[in-house]
Structure formats: C-alpha cells, structure tokens
C-alpha cells in the first residue's frame, strides 16, 4: 500500500468518527455562559455627579451547569448558549488540526493558520506594547494628566528623571522612524548604535558578576569530602561524595580547555579537550531527555483539548461517559 493512500484512509476514518460523535447524544463542542450583572456606584466629586454604572458580563461555565439549570427551569435566563464561544471552540479545534497537519506536509489549512497567526500575533504584541509600555511609561511621564483622566487614575506621578528619560526615548524613537522619511534614513542607525552600546556595557557587568566569578567560586570544591551530618566519617558515602567532586572539577577544567581558541586541539590539549567534549555530550543528552518530558506534556495538553473540550469524548469528571454510553446503547438497540 502506498503511504499516501494509508494517510487518506487514516484521515477518512478520523472524519467519520468525528461525524458519528457529533450525532451521538448531545453532540459536542458547545459553550455556555453565565450572565453576571455588574453595578457600581460612583460617588460625586468635583468633576461629576454621583451615578450608578450598570453593565452585563458573560462568564463561561461548564455545560453541565447549563443543563442542570435548564432542567430546573426551562425559562431561566442566567445561563445561556454562547455562539461566540462555540464558534471560538470550533475555530480553535480547526487551528489545532491545521497546525498538526503540517507534520504530514504543507497544505492550505496550515497556510491559513499561519497567515492568521502572523496577522493576529503581530497586532497582539503591538497592542500589548501600546497599553503596557507606551501608555504607562511614555504617556504616563509626558502627559500624566491625560493618562490619569482617561486610563490609569492611580498611576504614580512621574519623577523628573523619568520625564527626562522618556523625552530621550521619544527622541530615539523619532530618529528610528526617520527611516520612513525619504531622506535622513541614515540617522536611524544612531538609536541602534546607542542600544547596542548600552547592551554591551550592561552585559559585561552582569555576566562577569553572576556567571564568571560566581561559577568559578562555586567550583572551589574539596576533592576529599569528609563531611557528614553526624561527624562520623563513613567509608562509602565519603568516597562517593569525593568522587562526585573530583568528576565535577575535572569536568569543568576539561570543558574549559575545549573552549580555548588559540591552541590547536592536538596532543595532550586535544585529549583533554576530547574529555571536555564527552562531558558536554553527557550534558546535552541529559538536557535532551528532560526536554522530551516537557514536550510530550504540551502535546498531551493539546490532545486533551481536542478530546475533552471539542469532541466531548473523554471527561475526567466522569459526567459525560454515562450519557454517551446510554446514547450508544440506545443506538445499538434501535439498530
């Protein structure tokens, strides 16, 4: 059998199964919301009179809550079916499957998801940058009144230093935007130069402080480890602990040797560097093993989303299974 044929069959089986699932019992993938009426009294002050603000919020709830409420009173208005969230749920499922389909090969579904995510996420980060950085930092320092009146009433007033820094940032930003002007694009290199210089200056300090010196000092381990909690030196623990320290120190030195640039990896240096490479390989192997763990959990989470939220196939709370079983049973009886 050709591989492509097999894949067509696999996909067809999945589609059929989803179709069957949709027609069983209550179906699948519907979202419900709860109505929450908000009302806040605002006291009068210099600028406005006392008023009460009222609005309605809809909070997502479990389908079983809707069912229970519906059973108790068919005309209740507290819980309701949510078109927006149901469409969202189906959209999420579609996107999830579309991305997974890339594993087979590039296809229109994946390209669609890709196109959507680029547009959505680029704008998302732009919006985050605006509301979380520009508004509180830049506008909060340059136009504090406006920010207080419109958005963040409790933002602390800016200090003189902040104001100066933000004018400076604004100047850099404008220089950067000169790139868009027909002439003067060369000036946009200045803010970049500034940022690169600042980064370089800051990173020297932080790396020498927290990495170079700290890690060097942390390697000052005794090759003979006699310490034990009860001050009684036991043979085997001592040997194991000492061995661990010896292996550690040797490892650090060998790996450092590997990183020497001005010496060729030949002769004795080459042998030491080779031991260093072996240490690095063990390090990488361990990291690989640990990472697999995390990645599988992420996949499991997505599969759970498909099975639980979308297909209503599994149900960790054990509510739907009974319903499904009776539905399947009655279908079989009918058959």
């Amino acid at each position, binding site marked *: 059998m050709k591989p492509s044929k097999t894949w067509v069959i696999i996909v067809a089986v999945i589609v059929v199964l989803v179709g069957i699932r949709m027609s069983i019992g209550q179906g699948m993938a519907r979202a419900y919301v709860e109505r929450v009426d908000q009302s806040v009294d605002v006291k009068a002050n210099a600028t406005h009179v006392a008023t009460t603000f009222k609005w309605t919020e809809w909070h997502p709830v479990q389908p079983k809550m809707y069912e229970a409420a519906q059973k108790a009173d068919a005309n209740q208005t507290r819980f309701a079916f949510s078109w927006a969230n149901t469409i969202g749920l189906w959209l999420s499922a579609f996107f999830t499957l579309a991305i997974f389909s890339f594993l087979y090969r590039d296809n229109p579904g994946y390209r669609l998801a890709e196109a959507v995510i680029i547009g959505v996420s680029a704008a998302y980060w732009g919006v985050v940058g605006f509301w979380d950085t520009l508004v509180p930092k830049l506008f909060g320092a340059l136009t504090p009144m406006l920010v207080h009146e419109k958005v963040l009433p409790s933002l602390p007033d800016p200090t003189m230093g902040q104001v100066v820094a933000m004018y400076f940032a604004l100047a850099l930003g404008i220089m950067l935007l000169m790139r868009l002007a027909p002439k003067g694009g060369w000036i946009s290199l200045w803010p970049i130069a500034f940022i690169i210089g600042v980064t370089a200056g800051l990173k020297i300090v932080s790396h020498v402080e927290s990495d170079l010196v700290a890690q060097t000092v942390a390697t000052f381990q005794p090759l003979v480890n006699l310490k034990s909690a009860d001050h009684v030196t036991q043979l085997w623990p001592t040997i194991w602990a000492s061995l661990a320290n010896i292996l550690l120190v040797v490892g650090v030195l060998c790996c450092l040797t590997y990183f020497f640039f001005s010496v060729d990896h030949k002769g004795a240096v080459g042998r030491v560097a080779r031991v260093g490479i072996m240490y690095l390989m063990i390090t990488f*192997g361990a990291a690989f093993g640990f*990472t697999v763990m995390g990645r599988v959990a992420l996949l499991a989470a997505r599969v759970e989303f498909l099975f639980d939220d979308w297909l209503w196939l599994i149900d960790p709370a054990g509510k739907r299974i009974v319903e499904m079983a009776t539905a399947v049973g009655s279908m079989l009886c009918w058959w």
Partner: protein
Amino acid sequence: MRHPYVIHDTLCLDPSDPDWRFAGIVEKGYRALVARNAIANRWRMISSALILCVIALDSSGAIDSAPANTPSIITGNKVNLSSKIPFNELGQEVTVPPAAISVQARDVPWDAGGVIEVSWKPAPDTGTATKWVIERSEALQTGLTPWAFVAEVPIDETVVLAPKLSASASYFFSVTAVGPEGSSAVATTKNAVTPEWNFFIGAKLPLFCAILVVSACVIYYILAARRGRPMKVRRIAALEAITDAVGRATEMGRSILFVPGIQDMDNIQTVAGITVLGHVSKTAAEYDAAIEVPTSRSLVMEAAREAVQASYLAAGRADAYNADGIRYITDEQFGFVAYVSGRMVREKPAACFYMGCFFAESLILAETGNSIGAIQIAGTAESSQLPFFVAACDYTLIGEEFMAASAYLSGEPDQMGSLKGQDVAKAIAATLIIVGVVLATGAALAPQGTMASALEWLKGVLGS
C-alpha cells in the same frame, strides 16, 4: 490604687464589623501608648489605620464605663504603649523580654547612600523573646517624625540594614524585643545618623577588578596584534563551513536563510547574531546569493537591514541589496516559527543559519531545515537549546564559540588578538579554580588550618 483603662483596637477594614482585639492597658494619667504592644504582636504588618476603643476599669477590674470609641481613625504609630505595665487581656501581669542593650547605628561606608546599618546587643538572657522589631524616625528640626517600621528579624540576629532612607535626612532607630506575651521596652540610638552616599560602591570593587583583569587581557592582545604579533586561532569547523554553505546556495540557485534569534537588541546574543550576519551577508553579496532574514522584533529588523545594506555596499553590490528580504514577522515566538517553517518548506533555502538567542523553536526550525535537506549552521549561548542544534544541525557553535564567531570570520589581526586575550582570561579562571580546589581540599582535611583561612580570603577577594 489603679484605675487602668483597657484599650482595644481594630484594623479599620470594615467599620461596620470591627474586629476588636485587646491592645493594652494603661493607668489613668498615663498617655495611652497603644500601638507598641498591639502592632508588635498582630498589626505590625498592616497597621496603617487603627480605631481605638477605650474602656475604663474600676479597681476590681470590672468595667465601669461604656466603651468610648476614639472619634477618628488614628494612624497606627502615633501612639505608643509604655512597656512599664505589661498586662494581658485579663489584666494579669505578664513577663516581657528584656530590652536590647546599646543600639548603634552607622552609615554603611562606600555605598550608594540611603542605607544605615543598625546593630545592637541582646540582654544576657533574652527570655521568651522570639524576634526583634526595628523602627526608625527621621530627625526634623521640629522634633521626630512618627516611628516607622523598618524590619523584623529573628532573635538570634543583631544587625540589620535599614534601606530606602533619604540621603539628606538623619534618623534615629529603635529596637524592641517581642515575645509571645508582649514586647520589651524600647531601646533607641543616642544620635541621629545620616545615610551618606559615597563616590564609589565599595562592595563592587572585586567585580570592578575582575572586569578590569578580563578587559586588560583582551586589550593587551588587541594591541599586541596591532603591533604585528602573529595570532594563531584554532580551526572552528562550523565557521569554515559558512563560506561553503553560501557557495552551495549560489550553485543551487536557492536562497540563504538567516535567523538572528527571537530576542530583541537588548540581548547580547542578538547583537552577536547581527555581527555574524554582517559577515555572512558580505559573503552572500560577493557570491550573489539571495539572503533572507525574518526577524521577530522590529528593532532587530532595523539593525539587520543596516548591517546587510552596509555589507552589500562594502562588497560593491549595493544594487543587489533587497530590504524586503529582511522583514519583521511577529513578536510572538510560535507565530514566528509557524512562518519560518512554512517558508522553509515552500522556498527550500539551501543554507540555514540560526545565530542568536533561541528557545523551544530551535528544534522546530532545525528539524524542518533537515527535512528539506539544507545545510544548517547554528550558534547560540542558550545552553538548554544546544542539544537540539547538536542533534539536528550540521554544525553548531557552542556558547563561547558563537561569541567568537564574528572575530574569527573577520580575520582581522586585532579581532584575533581579542580571542587570544579571552583565552588568557580563561586560563586565569582555570588557575583560580585549581588554586581554590587545592585550598578547599586542604580546608576539608584540616578545617582550622591555614588553607581554610586562605580559602576564605580568596573567596572574600572574589567578592563572595
């Protein structure tokens, strides 16, 4: 004959439902110094507002007056309960811990200002005390400001640093021992101390020296290289492969993909990635190969454009530079990856470079690149991602090798010299490790010996 007043307080959270708690007892005629006892025990952490309720007791201890609530909310620290009369809620005398002896405060020398070191001696027997509460008061010309909380430390500590002080003011400090039944008398400093700032932060001297040593090594060899001293650098296979990869892309008529990581320009790895891009794009310009640089930050896009454009100019091929090949995609990590891997599958670049700061996307990119048969060269200092690049790429620059890439590729003597200087600094670190290990071993064998004190000295010199 005593006619004490019982004082209750409540945290003013919800005036309709006051949670009255016992705060202290005073005799008639005494000023009611409530907060000391009360806050030390309960409301210390949240004592901004207290409502006081005073109930008078007759000699037998029975209540003889209705509760008289204080009319307004009183800020916590305005009132102090004298520790002279330690009573509990039933009016019984209790034992309180003895006060601290000789509280001293001094400005921390060689610091950035704003910090005062407060130290004290505990009484010979601290009794039931469990902790010390330290407070401060600013000395104004008109008197003292209300006492403000500074710190709370376990009873076995006798020094505390009071931070966040104003460098232009002077302060008094008080120390109180607190036990389960009550707190001791207050011991205060005799003189006010000003937390002055100094020209240089003394605690950072070791760090300053360490940077100086590393810089001196690097600068010395840069200068030596300029004077013509030959600098040898070992072969780094991954960097040798760059030219081949660019050449191959040219031969195949396909593009080159260069990803400078997914972090912004405030990450030194991105800066290093851009410097490597400068060299790669020059080679690409010389070979006339198309180079594509998707970036996940707008600033990185700008920096990459500057670097690539200048490289094309330097290669005499300014006309071939295409700004739209260097484009911003999205800040979102996986949105970016979705684009790059889709693009890779469709365009099938012949060579892929991943140089910068990478996280989980490393393997998605490298595996996709592998599936389209591209030559892949990766470089990162993100040690958690190295295994994946090592497993899926043809060549990987590990950590420091990546940082050295730009210097190596430039081939300029002074840049090569800086690599040599880096090696010397590394040798110094290795030597220090060996010395430290020998001393530590000696210290482990003879905990009281010279080696042990030498080890302590060395650690101190290194600032830890």
